[in-house]
């Protein structure tokens, strides 16, 4: 799971390896595991990208993960 900007700083690293997720685990389960690793994960609202596509805010986190998926947590963007 890739982390950027303020989330990367909170974690002290730019990538988390999530072990032991059960087969068919959802995006939300992966986030729950990250929550146990990254202090203050929920002190910023973040979007989730799966394989470089934004997941829909409504129900995207219920999607089941596949082996090798690239997840990324994206804090509010501020380019420009």
């Amino acid at each position: 799971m890739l982390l950027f900007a303020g989330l990367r700083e909170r974690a002290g690293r730019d990538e988390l390896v999530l072990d032991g997720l059960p087969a068919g685990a959802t995006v939300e389960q992966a986030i729950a595991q990250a929550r146990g690793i990254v202090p203050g994960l929920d002190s910023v609202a973040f979007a989730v990208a799966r394989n470089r596509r934004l997941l829909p805010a409504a129900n995207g986190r219920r999607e089941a993960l596949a082996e090798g998926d690239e997840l990324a947590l994206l804090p509010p963007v501020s380019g420009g």
Partner: protein
Amino acid sequence: MASAFTDGRIDVEALVRSVASDEHGAICTFVGTARRRSEGKEVRRLRYEAYLPMAEAAVAEIVAAARARWPQAEIAARHRLGDCPLGEASVAVVAAAPHRDEAFAACRFVIDTVKAQAPIWKQEVFTDGTAWVGDPASFRSGGAGAAGGAGAAGGRGP
């Protein structure tokens, strides 16, 4: 296609040349620059980070959407990553078109959409700490002069 990102200074003139042609009668250039004041605080410099592969795709899609909407326009965009000193360009968008209305419209569409959608993040380095824009809880005191920080988090593999 050239990358939309650079670790160094943005060459705005080269960007303008890349869209210029004698088919066009107008070239609109937007340059965003690093500002010293932010909500009453003094900024020392800005620092940018991107989710590079996704951000490249996002900018390409936004430019393609603009070209679909203004088919005669030629458009290019560059965004800086890493440290951006005050006064220097952090982003530039150029749009050439036969007439100025399309050039202005396409340029504005691209910069507005890039700012709203592309996975790019700006950190303000203040005299007393750092914070990511849009993430006030990320404020960390100290470190204004410190190198600390990732700069461009680019080119990461899968």
